[in-house]
């Protein structure tokens, strides 16, 4: 077992996955369960996406024992990382994966929203595409519902497909209690205390759109989720019945489980 190491493993631990998630730059990844990895159903279709698929899988699951030259090993190592990422995208939308990522989210492992009005809301990693090598990972803020680039360049090189387009939305459907209250506070550009007309006009137009949306939600008797809400609808329990995403139960929206 000890001879399958590659050039990267100065402090090599006995598990490839341990090494992988603890190495610098891979802070966004959570550890995939052994059982999940060994269930071939979960890996359907990945054999066409990953070079040296079988070797890479062996490496990830710590059963790799091929004797080969360094160049080959490097290739396999690269494939293993790619494979891990692709499986990761599937894993994090399962119940266990969501729970693991939720813990990381709560700890703020993915960073805080840079937007001032979001008051350091923790972020979630996401991809803009589910196809590998399309775009690097982005960070989603649930408070302003926008995407941001990771601060650090070592994160900016991670493939977005390793997290996928759906994960962060599923997380908040499964754990709606984690949804932060939305804020209407915003930055108003001013010059010597006076609002600037062009920006202010746009703000007013946006506020109009917002009120229209609130009105639509109100008519459908749905909470708008804004922080400083003018009390028109009190928290009535029957509101929950109208909602697509279900109520408070954490396990309610078990979406993808294998």
């Amino acid at each position, binding site marked *: 077992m000890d001879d399958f190491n590659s050039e990267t493993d100065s402090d090599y631990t006995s598990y490839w996955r341990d090494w992988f998630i603890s190495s610098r730059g891979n802070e966004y990844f959570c550890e995939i369960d052994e059982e999940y990895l060994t269930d071939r159903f979960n890996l359907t279709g990945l054999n066409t996406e990953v070079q040296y698929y079988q070797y890479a899988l062996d490496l990830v699951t710590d059963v790799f024992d091929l004797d080969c030259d360094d160049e080959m090993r490097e290739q396999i190592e690269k494939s293993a990382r790619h494979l891990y990422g692709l499986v990761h995208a599937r894993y994090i939308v399962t119940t266990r994966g969501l729970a693991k990522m939720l813990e990381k989210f709560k700890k703020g492992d993915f960073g805080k929203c*840079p*937007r*001032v*009005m979001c008051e350091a809301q923790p972020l979630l990693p996401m991809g*803009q*595409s589910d196809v590998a090598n*399309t*775009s*690097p990972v982005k960070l*989603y803020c649930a*408070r*302003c*519902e*926008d*995407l*941001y*680039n990771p*601060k650090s360049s070592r994160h900016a090189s991670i493939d977005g497909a390793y997290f996928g*387009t*759906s994960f*962060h*939305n599923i997380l*908040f*459907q499964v754990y*709606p209690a984690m949804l932060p209250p*939305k804020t209407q506070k*915003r*930055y108003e*550009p*001013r*010059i010597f*205390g006076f609002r*600037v*007309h*062009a*920006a*202010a*006009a*746009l*703000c*007013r*137009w*946006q*506020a*109009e*759109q*917002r*009120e229209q*949306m609130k009105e*639509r*939600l109100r008519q*459908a008797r749905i*909470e*708008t989720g*804004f922080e400083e809400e003018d009390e028109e609808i009190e928290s009535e329990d029957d509101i929950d019945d*109208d*909602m*697509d*995403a*279900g109520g408070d139960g954490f396990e309610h929206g078990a979406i993808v489980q294998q």
Partner: protein
Amino acid sequence: MSSSSQVAESWISSFCGLLGHEYFAEVSEDFIEDDFNLTGLQSQVPMYKEALEMILDVEPEDDEDEEDEEEEDEDDDEVLGDEKPVGAAGSYRRAGDRRHLRMASDLSVIESSAELLYGLIHQRYITSRPGIQQMAEKYELQHFGTCPRVFCNSCKVLPVGCNDTPGQETVKLFCPSCLDVYTPPNSRFQAVDGAFFGTTFGCLFFMTFPELEIGAPRTTSVGGADALLAIQAAENKSRSSSATNSTVVPAAQPSLINGVAPSNLAPGLGPGNVYEPRIYGFRVSERARSGPRMKWLRMRPIDVNELDEARRYWEERGCGGAGLGDEDTNMLDVAGAAADANKLGVAVDRRKKAVGRRRRTNGSGNGGGSPMDTNGIGGAG
């Protein structure tokens, strides 16, 4: 502080060279020496006089006699290189000399006062003509970084404060592409006071340089992945714009809307630049508890004429747009006034008329939101 080792450096340049002070412009000494520019600062800064002397590297007169003999030999070679104009109080010395003259505790108080004073002067300086020019150079060189928002496409940002009073908030970054403010990515800027840049600077900057292209595409070579994304974004854009039932751009777009070229008005916002949450490719409904609620923040009308509130107001009133052409509505805002300076003569008395009319109608109801009604932001709903 490194100033004692580097003999040829002034206090100002050593201050601006400190780690975390990368956003600061070097205020010219002429600006500081003009007392008019310092009006009112005396009451805000403790040990004002000493702090000012420190900033200007001026040797206080009264201390000079007592300590003269110690300094004598050092002075000889050092003063030669010193060609700064003579300020309020006596001859110039180096930061290193000054250190000998004062008690250490005294010095640290003055040092912090000097930093405060410099910051407050800086706030004023960067709104002055030479200061804003200097900041423009720094902006062009991307000294302030870029917007972290994905859809802003690495738009260059400016340092601003959210408060003009020191000690309230740290420096923030203003993105002209999404008209929002962000925390600087590096924590070393958490120690920089936002008041040293002020609330006015951000907007004034882009009004001073209206020809700056805000949403300029990245010039650096982008990878194939980015190109692919750009194509997708374009597709999305066309899809979403057709979805909102306006095929291309409906009406003729004005060359100037509310005093800003439409292409420079929040180019990072609007259809195609608003994140659309999806699960397995399906959009998440607005009615879902976790559904999108903040899209308004990143919206922008496809037809910018919707932002011409004065015109909309009069159209809704049925008063006819004939009396109120484009030049009139543009005259009502600051930048428009600057841009249309040549039309000034014609427009002024028409403007007066318009203002008069508006005053009368304002009382009856704010529904349309006249541009004169700057306090009426809440009136939209």
